[in-house]
């Protein structure tokens, strides 16, 4: 179940990808929570056969979980996170191409198209016949699986994690003899959570298996040791591991932030530092990278000569090592060792070990989003008030107008407007026992959870609007007619059957569609910053 804006957005996504009938099924599941098939028939008003087809399609693409517990029929539930990730699929394919080349990109593309596939099916869908290209694709697949970009899909991954937790808790509680105490219930819950984690860890290892044949003896030679490698299991169904690709999106965001804060060369140094530990960054929940040595960073840098152009040195010749150390010092705010400086740093540089601080940077990016939204809606005065309240906590209206250097008559409507947008909230402190409004203090403060949630809601609405606009433009009469005509098989083979005006309409429509999709991906980055990077928690460390 999801709140209304997320639900609308997910319905719209399903509509674009799977059609209007499937979107009705998804909408019923999103507004009413888990449902069995019989109730879906009632709420959607569709034929049962259509509903079954939609559910099969959505389960195949991992958008819907299903579970059968004792005493109830098969229940279906929408996986909201997976639905929202579908907006990023284009970026994932591009990332795969950048990392491993075109064969990997094609493999990722075909998997995204079908939800999950076994390797032989992948190769047959890509129509690979001759053995040389097959070998190339097999190597690409191996790299993807070894780097955890693809993960195995098991029957357990089709059950919602909450359902699994509840089921395991029930199993543990059954083992308790007599009347359960609070401690035993807590232990049951912990054991259930540990069991889920263990099963998830095991699934991660599925997918690669050791080669069957082994070299007899010959432990000494190094060549034989290299041959004892893993091979992709041909019977496992693979699906995309969105977390791993999200890590790359996060890294790009951070290097862009460094570029905006300092200069291009500093961004290059940060990128090198991140790349040094990229293999170990498996999901977004790491607060910082493992410690990296400076020499490791320098190894990742390809073009060290360019770096010195980013800094101004008194002497002309500077060694590369000094250059890199200076950049690292800049990135770690070494000149400002106060808490404010630490909050503005990108890395922590201590005892010649570098650690990229993901948590700090995520927090700063979120704060920048909040300030940008406030600036758009309430101008620079609003940002002044926001920064004051973020820095000092709760304040009275009179104090705010004094500190912010604005007249009270200006501050009052601004505070009201910002509170209407959920950016700031009030804390009532009553002077008397009855909550008489004339006799209470109203302290204004920034409730970060509420502010970020309100902005996220607006972002979901925006994404929905963009998708609806794209659909409306597609259904405009001229465009619709031209698109239908271009679907004809004779026109697809011969472009000249379209008139000049029709071709122009088609080109305009394609340009519009691309603009809207680019806009959608830019807004989606906001969702990434507010939602996915908030794994570490939202509150500031003050």
């Amino acid at each position, binding site marked *: 179940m999801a709140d209304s804006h997320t639900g609308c957005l997910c319905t719209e996504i399903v509509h*674009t*990808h*799977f*059609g209007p*009938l*499937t979107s009705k099924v998804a909408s019923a599941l999103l507004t009413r929570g888990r449902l069995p*098939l019989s109730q879906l028939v009632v709420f959607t008003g569709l*034929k*049962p*056969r*259509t509903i*079954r*087809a*939609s*559910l*099969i*399609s959505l*389960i*195949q*693409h991992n958008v819907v979980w*299903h579970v*059968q517990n004792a*005493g109830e029929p*098969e229940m279906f539930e929408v996986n909201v996170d997976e639905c929202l990730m579908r*907006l990023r*699929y*284009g*970026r994932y*394919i*591009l990332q795969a191409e950048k990392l491993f080349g075109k064969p990997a990109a094609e493999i990722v*593309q075909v998997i*995204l*198209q*079908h*939800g*999950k596939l076994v390797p032989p*099916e992948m190769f047959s869908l890509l129509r690979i016949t001759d053995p040389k290209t097959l070998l190339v694709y097999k190597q690409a697949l191996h790299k993807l699986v070894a780097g955890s970009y693809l993960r195995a*899909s098991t*029957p357990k991954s*089709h059950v919602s994690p909450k359902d699994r937790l509840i089921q395991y808790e029930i199993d543990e509680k059954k083992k308790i003899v007599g009347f359960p105490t609070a401690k035993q219930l807590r232990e049951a819950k912990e054991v259930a959570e540990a069991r889920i984690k263990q099963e998830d860890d095991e699934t991660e290892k599925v997918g690669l298996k050791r080669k069957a044949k082994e070299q007899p003896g010959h432990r000494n030679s190094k060549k034989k040791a290299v041959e004892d490698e893993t091979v992709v299991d041909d019977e496992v*169904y693979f699906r995309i591991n969105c977390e791993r690709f999200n890590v790359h999106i996060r890294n790009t965001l951070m290097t862009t932030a460094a570029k905006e804060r300092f200069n291009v060369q500093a961004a290059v140094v940060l990128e090198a530092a991140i790349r040094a530990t990229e293999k170990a960054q498996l999901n977004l929940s790491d607060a910082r990278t493992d410690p990296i040595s400076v020499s490791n960073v320098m190894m990742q840098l390809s073009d060290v000569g360019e770096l010195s152009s980013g800094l101004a040195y008194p002497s002309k010749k500077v060694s590369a090592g000094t250059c890199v150390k200076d950049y690292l010092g800049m990135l770690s705010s070494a000149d400002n060792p106060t808490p404010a400086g630490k909050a503005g740093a990108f890395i922590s540089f201590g005892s010649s070990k570098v650690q990229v601080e993901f948590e700090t940077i995520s927090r700063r990016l979120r704060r920048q989003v909040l300030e940008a939204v406030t600036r758009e809606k309430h101008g620079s005065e609003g940002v002044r008030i926001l920064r004051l309240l973020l820095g000092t906590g709760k304040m009275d209206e009179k104090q705010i107008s004094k500190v912010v250097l604005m007249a009270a008559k200006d501050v009052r409507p601004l505070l009201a407007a910002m509170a209407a947008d959920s950016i700031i909230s009030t804390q009532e402190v009553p002077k008397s026992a009855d909550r008489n409004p004339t006799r209470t203090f109203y302290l204004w403060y920034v409730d970060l959870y509420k502010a970020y949630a309100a902005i996220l809601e607006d972002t979901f609405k925006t994404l929905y609007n963009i998708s609806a606009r794209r659909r409306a433009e597609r259904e405009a009469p001229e465009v619709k007619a031209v698109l*239908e005509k271009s*679907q*004809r*098989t*004779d*026109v697809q083979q011969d472009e000249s059957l379209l008139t000049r005006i029709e071709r122009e309409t088609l080109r305009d429509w394609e340009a519009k*569609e*691309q*603009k809207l*999709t*680019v*806009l959608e*991906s*830019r807004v989606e980055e906001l969702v990434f910053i507010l939602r996915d990077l908030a794994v570490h928690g939202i509150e500031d460390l003050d």
Partner: protein
Amino acid sequence: MSRGGGRFGGRGGGRGGFAGGATQPPMGLTFADLQNLSREATALYPARHLPVFTDATEDEGRAADLQLGLISRLKDSQYYIVEKTRSNGLPRYSDKYRPSLTSQPALKRKELHAPFFPSELLEDYFNPKRRKKTVSKSGKARVNIDELLAEDEEEKSDDERSDAGSQNEAEDYDVDEEDDNDYAGKLLRQR
């Protein structure tokens, strides 16, 4: 408007200045202000500064193209669910070139891995004419509870030797002597 203002002014003046506060125009305006208000229609929305869309970088353009390609391929795939409708337009020459209603691929059983799906779902979709063997279980469960209760009562009466309760068992459900809310009392009495 001016007549209305005059009438208001007359009434207000009749009552002596600002005594009749309810008839004063709102928001601190005076009658002179109301008269001087412009009669033209105001704009429906205030003027806005719309942000300018910067051109897509190469990467963004490529990612957008890949996304749109994926969506269009999904549209023609078996995962885009459509229902066959009867078109009542006249048959045309170009119909043979248009993608017909049957050209949308259908879901194939061999492409779907059975352990990932609920077995009933797959069976009912790909094998719609199979005979349903299972009777609804929920009905049975309901019946069981009543029988269980009856059994329980009899067992308890044997074990605990509270004959008084078991003999009145059949009557308790018919007789409405106590409140419906008094379930706890009922249970205690039955035991």
